């Protein structure tokens, strides 16, 4: 359970160090394996999120933990990167654009989750959140590794930007609960869709290691 996840995360972190060009481990690893690893991490996070969300929504209390709960998406809540884009539009993007969107989205989602971690009440939730954040950080690194191995540049700017300006913290506790609900919901959708993305990418990328970079560039 936990130890497998931490192992995967460490592998992802160690094998995907885009900051060190001389020691590009991902090249040895091969884009194919890199993608497989990212896919596995995504599935692991999906699994982890189910438990985390269940616990967290119970902490928020009904109606947040009711299965059919579907509150309005108030304008202020749009600061969380939304996964609900037109599916045809999404599929029409290049691999590079899709990977970059994933990279940016998870970096921001990680930021918001870390803020959550600082405020949550119970020790159990804090522990679960910390564990999830660590795994999510691993996913961001892993996606970065896939992009490097395919010859794509990493999205510019800090990997984990600070809270975007002009987006104030929720003005009251109830609205904050709604924000938290949407954060978890979006995270769920992102992970669900990323798994599909990486699965498809896996099939596109040939297993060969040496000529990989040249082929990817011509894509």
């Amino acid at each position, binding site marked *: 359970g936990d130890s497998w996840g931490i192992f995967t995360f460490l592998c992802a972190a160690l094998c995907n160090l885009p900051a060190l060009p001389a020691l590009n481990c991902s090249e040895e690893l091969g884009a194919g394996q890199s993608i497989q690893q990212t896919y596995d991490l995504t599935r692991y996070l999906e699994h982890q999120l189910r438990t985390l969300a269940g616990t967290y929504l119970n902490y928020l*209390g009904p109606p947040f933990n009711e299965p059919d709960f579907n509150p309005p998406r108030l304008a202020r809540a749009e600061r969380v990167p939304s996964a609900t884009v037109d599916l045809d539009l999404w599929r029409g993007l290049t691999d590079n654009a899709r990977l970059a969107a994933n990279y940016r989205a998870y970096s921001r989602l990680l930021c918001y989750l870390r803020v959550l971690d600082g405020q949550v009440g*119970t020790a159990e939730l804090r522990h679960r959140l910390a564990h999830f954040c660590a795994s999510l950080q691993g996913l961001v690194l892993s996606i970065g590794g896939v992009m490097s191995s395919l010859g794509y540049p990493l999205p510019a700017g800090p990997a984990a930007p600070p809270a975007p300006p002009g987006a104030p913290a929720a003005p009251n*506790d109830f609205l904050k609960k709604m924000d938290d609900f949407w954060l978890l919901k979006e995270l769920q959708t992102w992970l669900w869709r990323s798994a599909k993305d990486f699965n498809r990418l896996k099939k596109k990328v040939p297993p060969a290691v040496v000529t990989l970079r040249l082929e990817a560039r011509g894509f």
Partner: protein
Amino acid sequence: SPPLSVSPAADPAVISPQDPTLLIGSSLVATCTVSPDFPLKAEDLYWTLNGRRLPAASYAALGPSTLSVALARLNGSRQQSGDNLVCHSRDGGILAGSCLYVGLPPEKPVNITCWSKNMKDLTCKWAPGTEGETFLHTNYTLKYKRRWYGQDNTCQEYHTAGTYSCHIPKDLALFTPYEIWVEASNRLGVAVSDVVMLDILDVVTTDPPSDVHVSRVGDLEDQLSVRWSSPPALKDFLFQAKYQIQYRVEDSSEWKVVDDVGNQTSCRLAGLRPGTVYFVQVRCNPFSIYGSKKAGIWSDWSNPTAASTPRSERVAGGCDPKGGEQNTTLRRELKQFFGWVKKHAYGCSNLGIKLYDQWRVWLQKSHKTRNQV
């Protein structure tokens, strides 16, 4: 029910009071006022509390677009994040919400106990005063100060020895009385425990003794010799350690304790059963630190060490002849095997009957934990 579409910048409605804190048993009248941008009237609204619709009998229209609800004799909050009081439009859509924090102020934390590991740090634990729940999130802060020296310090590392514990890692003075107390606070108030006064030297504990060896005493069937080293951390300090040994037969859960070991680092156990495997543990009390003549706190027990008493070849009136004989034959064969291995296989010098005994200890421990799960 379908959600409202994304709304303009203003919130659809405003609830008052917003996120109030209340004592258990109190009553509340809340109002929901729809924003002028919305074409909703008081009669289009309804209330829910924690997902359950509130009876219309408790509503009152205070204006064309303001509906109130009366809540009486509130129970403690269902969750520590607050009860969810929500104002809905007729189709079920959420217009606004307010989190109600209903509970009790905290009670004085009690039973503060502290210990210092090797005089380097201090860990304290306590119990919350409340027999029941406060229903509100309660924060605990451990504070300490040197008596007569004024400045309060706050402990930073919590949950190191359970939920209600804190660890002070450094900057502690010896031969100095400290005042220690715990403050509990929640939205309804603060409660401070009684002050505990102690000197670090009064509550010292240490690591268990190291290098515990248990061996036979020649051919004596009823004795075993136990040797150990004093824990290394305290060798710089002037203290006298006192030790305790406990031992039991492999198949029993009843420990026998040897109390009068004093400060020697060896002891002979007598009156044991022949041909039996025993598990032995030792622990240490750093007694009389710097000549204070006070007892410290007992360390944890060392990991169990195993050894067996010899059994002579002639049949002694044993209780389990079958089991005992099988054991003896197995052990004899194992010893012969290990002797042969030492002679003929290189790099196997660690193999020996002692290792086999340690394996027996481990087997029993893991068997126990498996049974417990």
